[in-house]
């Protein structure tokens, strides 16, 4: 696929800004001999080979999260997601490696500074809400401010603001047990927002909610994110949630990050069979966009050229029509070979009069799901344009149909191994090395 990726952020290099969170070669081994386990893992041992030294929950994780980014960590149960996120605010101390929050390396700060960082830099939303049952909704939301030592009136004012933001303004005096699950998680979110930290950690924050409430919460999170510009690290085992929320997604397996990329990159270019299997059941039409499936047009005609050149180029490329752009590549319309060839004979000088301006163009960010209707209404490939109306690619109908089916290039036996989880560790490790080993 010749997708034009210049429009999507490059996975490991968030453009130029200092990362909000930076994770460098982090390991976490639970067990009697973590240091020895790390040494062997570094020397190439697999997770199973160090089993007697402890459970390697996170192995050699490295990534940067840019300010304002939603970074999703996805993986099956037990893949180390919770352990990883808990190292970002020091709830767990890494067995090796560094976690840097802004300018503070958690490995070198003392207990007092760590608590200060938690108060001011990073807050957390929990899977089962983790509210204080004996405190009112308002006092729950005000809890971080209380820990920060802010006076009662001020913290209640700010907590109310946070409750308003999540739509719970009228529930301040209720107890958590009087709320539904979705509302309780809103309190959890309000509590994290009240803390007013730049970084928000969310460990399966929506997993305990039923599907309707869940997608409502996702929308709300995206809205809040657009408004507040927090850096969010979001854990989920739900692929659709990951694809929907994540600017970038890290896929974890057995403690290792096997791929980091945008939803589209992971879908269209899975790093290995495991990721491919994982993404097989995603609703691709909502995640993939026109930009991710479009192709370079074989012929693009300049509005200033003549019919003779147009006819020849179309003949050489074996196409029956071509899009016409101006000097800045802004889409002007379409020329059919049936129109160009007679025009040559009639001695028409300019292409301009032959251009059919009435073409179907879609924006490059349009989800695939929304391409079917326009594609059905035309016999030529769809034109894909950017914000400035410039032609960036085309989507032939056959490409559209292909993109809807997950890529299928693994052989049968591989698939079976991934499915029952017995694939040898080495397989995943080797194929992932390039993805992991490319820090910013």
């Amino acid at each position, binding site marked *: 696929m010749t997708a034009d990726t210049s429009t999507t952020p490059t996975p490991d290099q968030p453009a130029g800004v200092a990362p909000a969170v930076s994770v460098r070669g982090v390991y976490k081994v639970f067990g009697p001999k973590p240091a020895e386990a790390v040494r062997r893992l570094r020397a190439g041992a697999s997770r199973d080979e160090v089993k007697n030294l402890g459970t390697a929950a996170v192995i050699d994780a490295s990534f940067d999260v840019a300010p304002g980014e939603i970074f999703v960590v996805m993986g099956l149960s037990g893949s180390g997601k919770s352990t990883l996120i*808990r190292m970002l*605010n020091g*709830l767990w101390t890494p067995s090796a490696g560094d976690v840097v929050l802004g300018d503070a390396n958690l490995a070198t700060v003392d207990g007092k500074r760590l*608590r*200060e*960082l*938690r*108060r*001011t830099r990073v*807050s*957390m939303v*929990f*899977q*089962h*809400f*983790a*509210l*204080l*049952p*004996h*405190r009112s909704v308002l006092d729950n939301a005000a*809890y*971080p401010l209380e*820990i*920060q030592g802010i006076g009662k009136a001020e913290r209640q004012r700010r907590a109310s603001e946070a409750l308003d933001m999540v739509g719970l303004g009228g529930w301040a005096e209720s*107890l*958590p*047990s*009087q*709320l*539904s699950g979705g509302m309780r998680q809103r309190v959890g979110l309000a*509590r994290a927002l009240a*803390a007013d930290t730049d970084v928000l*950690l969310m460990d399966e924050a929506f997993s305990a909610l039923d599907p309707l409430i869940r997608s409502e919460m996702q929308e709300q999170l995206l809205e809040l994110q657009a408004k507040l510009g927090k850096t969010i690290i979001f854990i989920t085992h739900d692929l659709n949630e990951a694809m929907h929320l994540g600017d970038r997604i890290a896929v974890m397996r057995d403690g290792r990050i096997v791929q980091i990329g945008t939803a589209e990159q992971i879908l269209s270019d899975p790093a290995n069979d495991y990721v491919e299997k994982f993404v097989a059941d995603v609703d691709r039409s909502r995640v993939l966009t026109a930009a991710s499936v479009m192709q370079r047009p074989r012929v693009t005609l300049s509005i200033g050229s003549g019919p003779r050149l147009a006819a020849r180029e179309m003949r050489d490329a074996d196409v029956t029509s071509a899009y016409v752009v101006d000097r800045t590549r802004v889409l002007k319309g379409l020329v059919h070979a049936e129109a160009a060839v007679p025009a040559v004979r009639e001695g028409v000088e300019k292409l301009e009069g032959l251009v059919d301006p009435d073409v179907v163009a879609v924006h490059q960010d349009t989800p695939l799901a929304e391409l079917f209707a326009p594609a059905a209404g035309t016999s030529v490939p769809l034109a894909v344009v950017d914000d400035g109306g410039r032609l960036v690619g085309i989507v032939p109908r056959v490409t559209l149909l292909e993109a809807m089916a997950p890529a299928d290039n693994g052989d049968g036996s591989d698939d079976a191994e991934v499915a029952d989880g017995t694939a040898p560790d080495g397989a995943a490790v080797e194929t992932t090395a390039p993805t992991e080993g490319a820090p910013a």
Partner: protein
Amino acid sequence: MIATASDTGTFVPRVELGAWVESAIDWMTDTFDPVFDAVKTFFESIYDGLEWVLSTPPFFVVALVLAALAFWVKGWKLGVGTLLGFCLVAGMNQWDNAMESLALVILASAVALLLGIPLGIWAARNAHVSRVVRPVLDFMQTMPAFVYLIPTVVIFLTGPVPGIIATVIFAIAPGVRFTELGIRQVDAEVVEAGRAFGSTDRRILRQIQIPLAMPTIMAGINQVIMLALSMVVISGMVGAGGLGNDVVAALQRVDVALGFEAGLAVVILAIFLDRVTAALADRAPVAKALRATR
């Protein structure tokens, strides 16, 4: 050695554990005599004060206060029941004994809880402590209750203090256990939330762990008090005073009437203490909050 082994008809040599414990206690009595004296004086004066407060006013004043307490923590039924019960105790001529026992129970329970709850908290936070404390508690709880009376009498002679000390030892276990259990049971995520927002461990203990463990800790307090009451009766054997004295006297004289009256007074006291502490447990903020439904 061989001679003693033949006493038991086995080839196991006689292990003189009892004698060793005895000499250890003797040694302690000699060595720490001033300490034990101070302890004795300390507890005696507190006991005397408590007993004075409960016995000096006319019985109906104290009965009314206790009934009012029951009414406040639970409701009018328990209030009226308490008043009737204590009137019956007075009518059976057991009032002074009952108040002595109540003073013993209050003092012994207070000491058991003052030692037991912090120990339980420590055990909940430290696996090593927990590993040491657990078998010790098992031992203390399974030892027949009145065995504790023997060394305490050796050390503290007569009066209420040996009874109080034996009661503390006997009743402390549930205070430690329930506290440890309650704190360990607190939802780990909620504790994590405290840490994640930058709270100190001490503050997490105060604002999260203890309040959330409170229903369980209260159940432990209830158990401590009930065990204390039963032990207070047993310590009548060493003349600790209170209802136990009459129970023991009735047993020695095979006096059915006295035994029944003293026994019934114990039951009334037990029901009162049990219901009041149970009601207090229900009033814990967390217990209340969890009862609130949408």
